[in-house]
């Protein structure tokens, strides 16, 4: 529950995708939840180096996230810590991992954002409530489907 994984097949070779993920030029083209602009992209691409990205959303709100590169294997794998600048949005530090796999049409990119709620996730690993929460989510989804006419 407190992690999410997305998989995309991209018609470009892993090296190109990797550079798009890790260069300020690349990042400025895609980072953010809507078509609002990336205002700042700083990258120190080495293990222990940091990144900082600030974006403005179409509603005018600005958000900044930063983190530390934990693993860099070009063009296969990238792992970094993640936190929002304003810690109101998410008080913890989470983990962002990207794996790039060469496929005939280009690259299969797997993005996993985990430890989204680090306190809860840590507890979750100890107590295994993740499954229970999943079940509850299914229940509510089902309810909302049933509610539809």
């Amino acid at each position, binding site marked *: 529950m407190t992690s*999410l994984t997305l998989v995309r097949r991209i018609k470009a070779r892993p090296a190109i995708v990797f550079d798009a993920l890790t260069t300020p030029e690349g990042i400025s083209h895609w980072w953010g939840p809507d078509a609002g602009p990336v205002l700042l992209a700083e990258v120190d691409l080495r293990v222990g180096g940091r990144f900082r990205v600030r974006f403005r959303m179409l509603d005018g709100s600005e958000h900044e996230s930063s983190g530390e590169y934990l693993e860099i294997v070009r063009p296969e794998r990238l792992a970094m810590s993640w936190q929002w600048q304003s810690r109101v949005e998410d008080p913890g530090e989470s983990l962002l991992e990207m794996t790039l796999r060469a496929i005939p049409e280009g690259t299969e990119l797997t993005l996993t954002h985990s430890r989204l709620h680090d306190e809860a996730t840590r507890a979750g690993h100890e107590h295994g409530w993740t499954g229970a929460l999943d079940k*509850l989510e299914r229940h509510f989804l089902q309810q909302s489907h049933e509610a539809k006419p």
Partner: protein
Amino acid sequence: MVNYHPAHGPRGLDRTFGALVDPTRRAILARLEREDGASVSALARPFAIKLPAVMKHLEVLDAAGLITRSKQGRTVTVRLNAAPMREAIEWLRRYERLWSESLDRLATYAEAQEPKARAGEAAERKRRSSNHGTEKSTT
């Protein structure tokens, strides 16, 4: 305004997730999912713990807003309140939107770079083979 934190803020989420950590509390919630309201004593029955311990768990669930309690005579009826859970789920969905939208644009950008890289490589091959030809002619 779109925001990355839910209306009650991360403190509310902390309480929600904190309340869900305990297996007894999860079992209570799971039961309240199935039954629309149960008395405290009925809730306590399946557990090998004393009523005061169950009351404590109910306090935590109540503080997290996950249940409501209503008293009628001597019976306290407990009901599930799904709103905080929905809020926790919505919070996670915001991350999903962030990455889903970002990766769509990333794909568009990278896919536009691929033909450029190919054109560059073709030009490089051409340059090398013509260089190669020059070398050959000089030997």
